């Protein structure tokens, strides 16, 4: 049972390191998916938004980490 718990904890840790980054990425994906499915946003535009959004979220996350060390 311990081994399963260990695997489960490791599996969760694989995706979540900086909680803000993970949360913002999930919000971005959800927002794009909803816009495509319910608001008729062209899916290709959704894909492009996903690309730009992911890079923006990454930038925010690394900037925050660098700032924290600088202080």
């Amino acid at each position: 049972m311990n081994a399963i718990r260990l695997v489960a904890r490791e599996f969760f840790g694989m995706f979540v390191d900086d909680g803000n980054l993970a949360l913002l990425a999930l919000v971005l994906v959800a927002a794009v998916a909803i816009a495509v499915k319910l608001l008729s946003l062209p899916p290709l535009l959704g894909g492009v938004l996903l690309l730009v959004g992911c890079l923006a979220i990454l930038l925010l996350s690394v900037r925050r980490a660098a700032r924290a060390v600088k202080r």
Partner: protein
Amino acid sequence: MQTLTPILSTVTAAFLASFVEVVEAFTIVLAVGVTRSWRPALTGAALALALLAALVLAFGPLLALVPITTLQFVVGVLLILFGMRWLRKAILRSVGVIALHDEEAAFSKETAALNQQANDRRADYLAGLASFKAVLLEGVEVVFIVIAVGAAHGQTLYASLGALAAFFLVMLIGLAVHRPLARVPENALKFVVGLMLTSFGIFWTGEGIGADWPGADLALLAIFAIVALASFAMVRWLRSTYPVSVGGLAR
């Protein structure tokens, strides 16, 4: 070219990501083998590999039941989370905010811990457990990478071959040098893997919501190039804006 692109990118991503994980597991198994003995080291590693195989056999067939667009979307989102985590760490390591991973240090730490337990009655058990945990934890990541980069385009076989090649290469080099593989440019590899996994994630999530990428599979290369350029720009910008002397404190 259009059929070769996903195969090559799948094999490369699985190979590079697995290479990094196998190097980390190998360091611990080697430490156990050299410090204690090879029996608990290999027993722990074998048990972990058996458990990983059981997990794959138990959960692998379930993937066939999931519709392809749903699979692409779910795997794509997980890859975005997984890839951006690798990429974030690689960027922060490149600018010195996070200390570089050091296999020699990991080896020394593990051997010191094993030496402390040398007089314990359960020393063999503890050594085997260390080996078991290292292989299991790094192996979980390898299994996910193989399934994630392979499943969404029905290329699990190619992804498995990439991971297997990494496993054999590390074993071969490890047996030859018989010490931790400290000279592997681990952060550079992690940077490339982070770029590839994030690109795969964006590509498949896009396909999952119905995006018809221009150039089909070739769009993957374009996404990779854009993510790479943006990441290198972030490294340059962070270096000039927030210069850090040595390994920092951020996670």
